[in-house]
């Protein structure tokens, strides 16, 4: 009996010790430190090494060399700062960043998307709204829409993309259509889809299995339907996903499907979104959803009749010629960096005109800094860049939360193929939206 009692006491002592350990850990994890970053020109003269994580250099042919040039230019100004840039594959980048955030260690500067994605990493990142140099603030585009719903800007947006149709004009001719005329209006686009279907030519290269295509269409059409005020509400988390605006977007996507824009029932759900790029590159589809100049330049090599035309405005559009366009990505400073001043100086340099000029000149990363001198030389640059630079453009891309996007991605195939009703889709999507708000 005595032995049992002593074991019981020992057990209780162990539980108490474990509780103490846990409570101690809990205290450690509940940091309430006020974390702000303010711009200063005075980077300490002490030698410092910054670890930088990014997936951007690998996105461009010759990207690593281009970023080396950017770092060299930065070091001319700040020779005391050594930059160690790690180019990481996109597929594992975010997991590693999450691990880094939980362990509170790792890189000093990271590539980051704005809005909802940055908010998801908010405990790891310094708010940057007061950390921008006056020169950068003056010339940088897409700042407002990259704020998170808590009123903080966790990254400085850098680079630019714009979603438009990459158009294989030869296939339009083959179908007896004029691409410019067909894509001038929404109804014209639907009519073209129907014609392509009748001729046995896939209209838009499609891959619905991973849902990225629905996501892309969601950005493209919802941006048209948002005026500046609505976009501001969406950015602040004040526009629910069950707003009629998003129902209209989904209705328009389903309308496109009905018109045969994405191929027949056979094609649905089979391919991944990236497979659709191959389909288009092989000249097997008339249109592709394109977001970046680099892809257009590449496709132009295999499709000489390639051009870029905006998706026509949906009937409910609040704009004349808008395309969904915004920052390519951005850069952020982590809260555990030992040298916030140096890290911030590097981020400001990346967003500034000098770095963006180097990237434009070497690998044609479209700049979002008005101080960059953009000379258009190639055919794709001449048709695409003016579309991306259109001041009417904006995007609500950043404010789609990760969980909402996951619902969109996983239900895209079932929704398009009719296995899931629109109501079921919105029921799940709203739940995800509300969880984030």
């Amino acid at each position, binding site marked *: 009996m005595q032995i049992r009692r002593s074991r019981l006491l020992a057990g209780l002592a162990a539980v108490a010790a*474990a509780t103490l*350990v*846990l409570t101690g*850990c*809990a205290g450690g*994890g*509940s*940091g*309430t430190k006020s974390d702000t970053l303010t711009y200063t020109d005075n980077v300490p003269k002490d030698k410092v090494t910054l670890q930088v994580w990014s997936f951007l250099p690998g996105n461009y042919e010759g990207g690593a060399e281009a970023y080396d040039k950017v770092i060299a230019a930065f070091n001319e100004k700040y020779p005391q700062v050594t930059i160690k840039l790690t180019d990481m594959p996109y597929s594992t980048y*975010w*997991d590693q960043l*999450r*691990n880094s*955030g*939980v362990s*509170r260690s790792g890189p000093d500067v990271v590539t980051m998307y704005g809005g909802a994605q940055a908010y*998801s*990493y*908010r*405990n*790891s990142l310094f708010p940057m709204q007061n950390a921008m140099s006056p020169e950068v603030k003056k010339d940088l585009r897409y700042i407002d829409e990259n704020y998170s719903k808590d009123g903080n800007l966790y990254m400085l947006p850098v680079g630019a993309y714009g979603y438009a149709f990459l158009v294989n004009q030869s296939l339009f001719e083959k179908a007896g259509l004029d691409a410019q005329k067909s894509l001038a209006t929404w109804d014209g686009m639907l009519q073209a889809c129907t014609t392509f279907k009748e001729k046995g030519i896939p209209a838009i290269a499609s891959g619905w*299995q*991973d849902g990225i295509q629905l996501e892309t269409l969601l950005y493209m059409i919802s941006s048209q339907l948002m005026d500046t005020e609505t976009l501001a509400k969406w950015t602040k988390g004040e526009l629910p996903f069950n707003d009629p605006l998003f129902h209209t977007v989904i209705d328009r996507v389903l309308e496109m499907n009905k018109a045969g824009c994405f191929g027949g029932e056979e094609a649905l*759900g*089979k*391919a991944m979104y990236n497979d659709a790029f191959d389909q288009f590159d092989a000249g097997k589809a008339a249109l592709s959803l394109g977001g970046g100049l680099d892809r257009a330049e590449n496709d132009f090599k295999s499709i000489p009749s390639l051009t870029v035309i905006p998706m026509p405005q949906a009937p409910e559009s609040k704009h004349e010629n808008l395309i969904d366009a915004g920052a390519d990505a951005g850069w952020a400073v982590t*809260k555990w960096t030992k040298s916030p001043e140096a890290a911030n100086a590097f981020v400001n340099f990346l967003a500034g005109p000098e770095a963006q000029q180097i990237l434009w000149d070497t690998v044609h990363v479209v700049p979002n800094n008005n101080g960059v001198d953009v000379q258009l030389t190639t055919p794709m640059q001449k048709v695409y860049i003016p579309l991306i630079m259109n001041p009417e453009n904006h995007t609500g891309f950043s404010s789609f*939360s*990760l*969980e909402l996007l*996951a619902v969109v991605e*996983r*239900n895209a*195939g*079932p929704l398009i193929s009719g*296995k*899931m009703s629109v109501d079921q889709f919105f029921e*799940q999507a709203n*739940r995800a939206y509300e*969880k984030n708000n």
Partner: protein
Amino acid sequence: MTATTTATDRRGRGDRSGERRPRPRFRGGLGGGPAAMLLILPVIVLEVLVLFIPLLYIAYRSFFDWQPGGESTPNGVDNYIDLFTQSEFWQVVGNQFFYLLGLPVWVIAPLIVSFMLREKVAGSGFFRSVYFLPAVMSPAVVALLFRALLSADGPINSMLRGVGLDFLAKSWLSDETTVKPVIIILVLWAGFGTGVLIFSSALSAVPKHLFEAARLDGVGFWGEFWHIAVPSIRNAVVLWMIFQVISIFLFMFSWVYVLTRGGPGLSSATMDFLIYQQFMKFGFYGTAAAQSVVLVLLIITVAGIGGLVTRLLNGKKAAA
């Protein structure tokens, strides 16, 4: 005298079965004394540090809006309510139990093959090696391979179309009706060799004369299998079953992640995949913690049921 000598000879020189040696008393807790305690202490410490404290920590954190590096506020059982009111969660639990439908196949298939290989079949060692090969391959690599094989325009569908079985060609991994059965078959393929190995080693301990006697009595293949082989290696079978069940709850991640990413929709997602998504992708740390606790409790329950079944079977055996 002669009879005594014969009996002694039969027993052999080393046979001391007449003597009752005390058996080690490790049963019933730490009855081995301080020396035994000292020996197992490092393992206990390691288990506590690596397993139990993190587990307790996760359980504790499941009652918070957990924000690593930020302010974590207690939220009672909100994470659990959130979890249990999500239809997605129940869909995934349903998937998990659907995968358990593969259990009879995962057990019986390697059992039959190991029974067939127990005799001196020509090349039985070769076959065992071939069967075991998938077990030493990374599930991620195997899953990638099968993703290519099973794609809509992949070799399997091409083969089916080539032999005029067009109606059987499907989008195996993107069709809600086929994706789970396909995964069950792949798990069978991957675990088959290990099962054969375990059952073969268990069968090798069964006295051959039992089978020989049965054969003399006219018992056929299935009779030997069901009435001699299976009862003789019952413990190994139950152990394998428990292992398979736990694997379904714990080790499906790499398959699902590489093959389907849980899709289409959530129709092939497992709980570990959902935990990964909540934690790594969305940053819902508290929800992921609650889900981890539920998963651990489910596994404990299932393992407990397995233990109970083993005891019942052993009890019946002893009674017989």
